[in-house]
């Protein structure tokens, strides 16, 4: 009998789309699916209970770190005979899951998988997306992080399942949490948005970024992304970087403005359904992945685009 455990991730009162996509990935391997909710939000447990077969709810943890998460998930896996642990590839899970794999006996891990081939074999991107690897986990316990953009969000089941308190005693001692500075934004987040407007060095400077990218994002109610160079220059928060080492995104529409299309960036957005590129340089590699390209000056084209979209929206 295969027992799956899904780590539920949420902001305030909303479960992240990536968690629903992770459930879809787990459903590809038939078995019983449980979910673990860490933190003091009972509503989240209620919400997720429509998607899985059992919910474990832990409301004892105040500061959620890789340390406390490792302790709880480890305990949950051992006490409930879990064989597969699944989460999205979030920053917290990226650092927690290897630690759990290491603590468990007879466990191994597949990072950021894009597809489930069978119950022990998975596909994942390597070399910044230049290569797709098929890897096989030989261990009894399998720890898997999921590139959520490669899976559709799971559908609800017919009924709600039981919610069980899982308030184990833990004593995390490695990491001392000090603070968490959230960069506040009214825009949709990159990994959840259906449209993304992204700017590169071609918008010239911070002023150019503000003038072109934000107004276009506003009319489309889109998220804002950027290249590594733009983040490094400090025009936007680091958290907005799209690319192999930043966020991997796959919205319905991705508009790349003044982005040349370095491998590293393209690896982070080539899963998008429709890609539009606006660039002065006709040889820019971004045009090789774009469905629609316009060659020209973004400072002329983008304002026209905004006006045209406004007309349609009326």
């Amino acid at each position: 009998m295969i027992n799956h455990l899904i780590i539920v991730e949420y902001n305030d009162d909303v479960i992240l789309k990536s968690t629903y996509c992770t459930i879809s990935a787990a459903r590809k391997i038939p078995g019983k699916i449980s979910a673990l909710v860490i933190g003091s939000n009972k509503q989240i447990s209620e919400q997720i209970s429509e998607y899985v077969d059992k919910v474990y709810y832990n409301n004892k943890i105040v500061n959620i770190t890789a340390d406390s998460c490792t302790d709880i998930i480890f305990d949950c896996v051992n006490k409930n005979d879990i064989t597969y642990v699944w989460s999205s590839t979030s920053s917290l899970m990226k650092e927690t899951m290897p630690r759990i794999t290491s603590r468990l006996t007879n466990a191994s891990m597949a990072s950021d998988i894009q597809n489930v081939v069978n119950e022990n074999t998975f596909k994942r991107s390597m070399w910044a997306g230049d290569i797709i690897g098929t890897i096989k986990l030989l261990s009894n316990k399998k720890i898997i992080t999921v590139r959520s953009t490669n899976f559709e969000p799971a559908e609800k089941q017919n009924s709600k399942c039981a919610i069980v308190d899982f308030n184990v005693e833990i004593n995390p001692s490695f990491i001392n949490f000090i603070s968490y500075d959230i960069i506040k934004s009214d825009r949709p987040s990159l990994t959840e948005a259906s449209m993304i407007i992204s700017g590169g060095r071609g918008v010239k400077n911070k002023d150019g970024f503000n003038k072109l990218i934000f107004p276009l994002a506003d009319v489309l109610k889109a998220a804002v992304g950027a290249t590594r160079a733009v983040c490094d220059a400090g025009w936007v928060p680091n958290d907005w970087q799209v690319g192999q080492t930043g966020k991997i995104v796959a919205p319905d529409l991705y508009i790349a403005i003044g982005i040349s299309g370095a491998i590293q960036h393209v690896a982070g957005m080539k899963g998008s359904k429709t890609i539009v590129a606006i660039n002065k340089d006709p040889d820019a590699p971004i045009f090789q992945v774009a469905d629609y390209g316009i060659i020209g000056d973004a400072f002329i084209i983008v304002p026209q685009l905004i006006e045209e979209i406004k007309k349609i929206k009326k």
Partner: protein
Amino acid sequence: MKILALVKRVTDYEAKLKIKSDATFIETDDINMIMNPFDEISVEEALRIKEKHGGEVIILSIGPEEATQQIRNALAMGADRGILVVHDTYKKFLDSGMIAKIIKHVYEMEQPDIILMGKQAIDDDNHQVGEYLAEMVNIGHGSQANEVNINLESKSVIIDKEVDGGIEKISLKLPCLITADLRLNEPRYASLPGIMKAKRKIIKKFNLDDFKIEIKNNVIIEKLELPEKRESGVIVKDVSELINKLHNEAKII
């Protein structure tokens, strides 16, 4: 302060990769190899900590004989000595658990205050070894560091980490493990005197037998392949044609 900085020899990020005919790994003949860029950042951070607080920076690599080049590069930047565990992971694959096991041996031998390494290697993109190792040797870790401040008195480190949605600040007791993110620092170039000095610095070599490690992977690579190419699109002449396509063809706007 004794710092162990880990360096992986990887394919150049600009290299055109070719998959071996049996699809088990990539060809390495005629491919330029470099120090994993995230590891270069961790070497730089190790040197900055040493310059501020004193101590020693030891470079460790697991790789073929040729990985001495990447260790020498780190020594030329200013590190003190090197250790190479000779095993070509591009020819005889080792999973993250095996790699962590090897590093554990060196950790116990050297007993550093800090282990520094890149958050991930740009070849396998796994992002596993650091945290796996920290658990194995029973120390705290800080992943994706973008600022590191050592407090000698309290024997602790304060780390700013790049996390989803913002910056998380944590502290760890020494000894600890830190993985470097892109913006932790800008690595220095090796100076000419640095390069000359590096030639005389010691690189000690071991192999898996020295540590009595038997290879037993829990992960195997079955196959590598090239990704599906996106069908090439069209160049439109102006904004109204673009809007038309997005509205009527892609039906997005």
